[in-house]
């Protein structure tokens, strides 16, 4: 590796941020979401020193519109989000490409193939019909592309989509750094260009639509010879692979493992819109079979197919359409070994004795499912909802009628898994409230309870609640208010009292709920199980929209803030613990299930792992034998 220029170990997301700094970005916004969060997070860390305005926004749409405004005013701006966030921002995105920008603007979006942290597998390139789309395959390339994309964006006066996936965002690499540009551009609204940003009717819009297409045509020339697209061909190969993003590196790795690296010509696509037609034609004309490998939809594949129709040489194009590439999940080396193997005629070999053993062992493995942190306030509020619903309906299991419990996007969504196991839907930000109202109006005759977090409430829950009140749905909404966007890494929310850059006002959930006109509003401490259960039961009995705000700071935040102060720990009085005889067979572990409560299989009693316990005291309220006590810890 070159020792001349500085190298630093960077995550793909950090590399995007570094690229933005090198390009002199002046405005940064976003809404957190795995696997995208570190982009804005790492820019916030250096914002003040670099004269950058950075914000965590209330949702992706407002984040986009803020960054877009900055770019209209000539600043270089970057907005970052995950793929499902781009759907929220799409209302503005699908209009912004018409007018374009003055300063360079990057929309960095991280897709999540395999969906380890998302509610769908989505290919955000499908939004890039009218705008250039860059697809880095590694952190180094992510950094380099962002720097170049800012320049191109400004030259073309068009925003640019930088499409990442989990395999790039969370990959790390020693990245060769470039020079940081300080860009001191005084923001200036282009008044003289009216009506460019006044998209009132067809007479403005149709010429701008035409402009967007002309911009792409102009960019096609550069895209065709960009170093981010690379044809690796010797001329004797019978097979070709066209691949983009993380899948390119995985496909190269697999061809090396299979020992066929020299038998396959590669076209690495770094700019997937506009696709480098001439390079594709070159490859298609040189080989017999071309395999297209990309995550997640056949975006490049369909374009390659249509180019193949235009050339004289007969070439077989294989990919998703032909069933050669799996239609779902990420394209890891494991998945691709078979895909590439089938193409080159290297059938899967017979499993060795050891591999058979491994296969057998993996069959009977317990899973590390999602679980709430010890002391998580949601543990109290979820337990309270579940107990109230069981009491009111007499139902113990999910598959029995009686209630519909809806989750939203956040940590409390864990209430769908054992041992809580009572939530049955989880699909979109704010969707718990609107779907709850829908179920109520559809009238299945069941109790309808929605669970939503504070950040999600601010993001998209407010219009849903207005709709429920306006249309008089009989639903109960539990807001699990921990004063932070917890699941993505404790980013501030509008009720945290801070912004990305410093102190900020506190916007209370309950104030908004009351202002909307909800008549039943209670604020409870989810660490107080009795009060929480009473409030929820009353709320369900209320005839109309009722809201219970379960309010307590995220345990991880609280633990850090109070680390210096005296802490509390729970302890199981071993004489009083009656083990499996407590009515539900180890109630604290089987039903309540805190990660800090451990079953001592020798003694057949519960005990507390004091490295995990945060002393919340919920288990002490739950234990039927009163065997758990909470004590002050003296340092």
């Amino acid at each position: 590796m070159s020792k001349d220029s500085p190298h630093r170990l960077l995550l793909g997301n950090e590399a995007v941020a570094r690229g933005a700094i090198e390009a002199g970005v002046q405005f940064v916004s976003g809404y957190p979401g795995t696997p995208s969060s570190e982009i804005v997070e790492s820019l916030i860390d250096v914002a003040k020193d670099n004269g950058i305005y950075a914000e965590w926004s209330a949702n992706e749409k407002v984040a986009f519109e803020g960054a877009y405004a900055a770019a209209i005013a000539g600043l270089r701006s970057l907005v970052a989000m995950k793929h499902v966030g781009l759907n929220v921002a799409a209302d503005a995105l699908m209009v912004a490409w018409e007018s374009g920008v003055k300063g360079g603007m990057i929309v960095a979006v991280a897709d999540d193939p395999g969906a380890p942290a998302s509610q769908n597998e989505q290919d955000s390139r499908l939004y890039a019909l009218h705008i250039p789309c860059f697809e880095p395959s590694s952190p180094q390339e992510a950094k380099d592309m962002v720097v170049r994309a800012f320049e191109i964006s400004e030259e073309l006066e068009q925003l640019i989509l930088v499409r990442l996936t989990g395999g790039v965002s969370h990959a790390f690499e020693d990245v060769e750094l470039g020079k940081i540009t300080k860009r001191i551009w005084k923001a200036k609204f282009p008044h003289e260009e009216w009506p460019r940003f006044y998209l009132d009717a067809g007479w403005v819009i149709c010429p701008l639509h035409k402009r967007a297409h002309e911009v792409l045509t102009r960019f096609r020339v550069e895209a065709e010879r960009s170093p981010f697209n690379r044809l690796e061909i010797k001329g004797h190969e019978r097979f070709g692979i066209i691949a983009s993003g993380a899948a390119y590196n995985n496909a190269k790795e697999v061809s090396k493992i299979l020992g066929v690296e020299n038998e396959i010509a590669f076209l690495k696509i770094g700019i997937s819109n506009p696709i480098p037609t001439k390079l594709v034609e070159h490859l298609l004309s040189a080989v017999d079979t071309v395999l297209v490998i990309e995550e997640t939809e056949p975006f490049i594949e369909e374009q390659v197919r249509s180019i193949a129709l235009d050339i004289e040489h007969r070439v077989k194009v294989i990919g998703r359409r032909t069933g050669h590439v799996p239609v779902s999940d990420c394209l890891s080396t494991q998945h691709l070994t078979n895909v590439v193997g089938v193409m080159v005629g290297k059938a899967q070999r017979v499993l060795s004795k050891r591999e058979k053993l491994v296969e057998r062992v993996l069959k009977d493995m317990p899973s590390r499912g999602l679980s709430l942190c010890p002391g998580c306030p949601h543990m109290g509020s979820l337990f309270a909802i579940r107990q109230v619903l069981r009491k009111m309906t007499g139902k113990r299991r999910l598959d029995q009628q009686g209630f519909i419990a809806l989750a939203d996007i956040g940590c409390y969504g864990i209430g769908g898994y054992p041992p809580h196991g009572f939530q049955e839907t989880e699909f979109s930000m704010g969707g718990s409230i609107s779907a709850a109202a829908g179920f109520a109006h559809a009238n299945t005759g069941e109790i309808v309870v929605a669970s939503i977090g504070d950040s999600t409430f601010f993001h998209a829950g407010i219009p849903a609640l207005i709709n429920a009140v306006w249309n008089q749905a009989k639903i109960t909404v539990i807001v699990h208010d921990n004063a932070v966007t917890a699941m993505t890494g404790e980013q501030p929310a509008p009720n945290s009292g801070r912004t990305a850059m410093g102190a900020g006002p506190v916007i209370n959930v309950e104030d908004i709920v009351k202002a909307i006109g909800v008549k039943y509003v209670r604020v409870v401490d989810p660490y107080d199980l009795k009060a929480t259960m009473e409030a929820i039961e009353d709320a369900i009995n209320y005839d109309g929209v009722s809201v219970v705000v379960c309010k307590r700071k995220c345990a991880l935040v609280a633990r850090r803030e109070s680390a210096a102060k005296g802490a509390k720990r729970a302890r199981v009085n071993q004489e009083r613990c009656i083990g499996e005889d407590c009515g539900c067979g180890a109630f604290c572990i089987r039903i309540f299930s805190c990660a800090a409560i451990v079953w001592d299989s020798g003694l057949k009693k519960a005990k507390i792992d004091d490295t995990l316990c945060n002393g919340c005291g919920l288990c002490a309220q739950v234990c039927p034998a009163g065997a758990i006590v909470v004590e002050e810890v003296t340092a």
Partner: protein
Amino acid sequence: MKESTVNILVAGVGGQGNILASRVIATAAVKSGYHIRGCDTLGASQRGGHVTSHIRIGESYSPFIPNNMAQIVVGFDPLDVLMEANLISASAIVIVNTEKVLPAGVKSGQEEYPEDILETIREIVQDLRALDAVDLARKAGDARTLNVVLVGSLAATGKIPITPEVFKDTISEVVPKTTLSLNLKAFDLGYQAISQSKSLTGER
């Protein structure tokens, strides 16, 4: 095939400090002049989930270790090592902390933690070194230094091109100043434990 790339797999439970450990290993490798590619695989949960880091020292394409190619495994829990059995080379050296973090399903009795799990790992790999790294971390002064104990253990294998000094430099850059001496002690305890250990599978 000449193995010019050293593939290190770090496997553990979210919250054990395994991501920080992987960052220390990767940074130390960069400091030692190597090209690095790697990746963290983590799901939606901050705590309690199965988390792995793939670190590939030297030239490689994919940031993920392909099947059967992890030559060194740093295991924070035997279960998390076994979960990645597909990735682990038969000739691998596996360092594993023996103090278990039981999954919720095991605690509630719905699932079982594999019996004789070390025995099973031993059937899959050539060199298994088991140590109670939590106990060593407590001896260093804080159970949370578990990750640094395991980094120390890794350094002692002699299978990676990074000196203990470079590791210590890296650790001193990433941990809070107030915990530095604790962490350096944890590193030494992990280092000594493996230097003095015998392979659990060596006799075969």
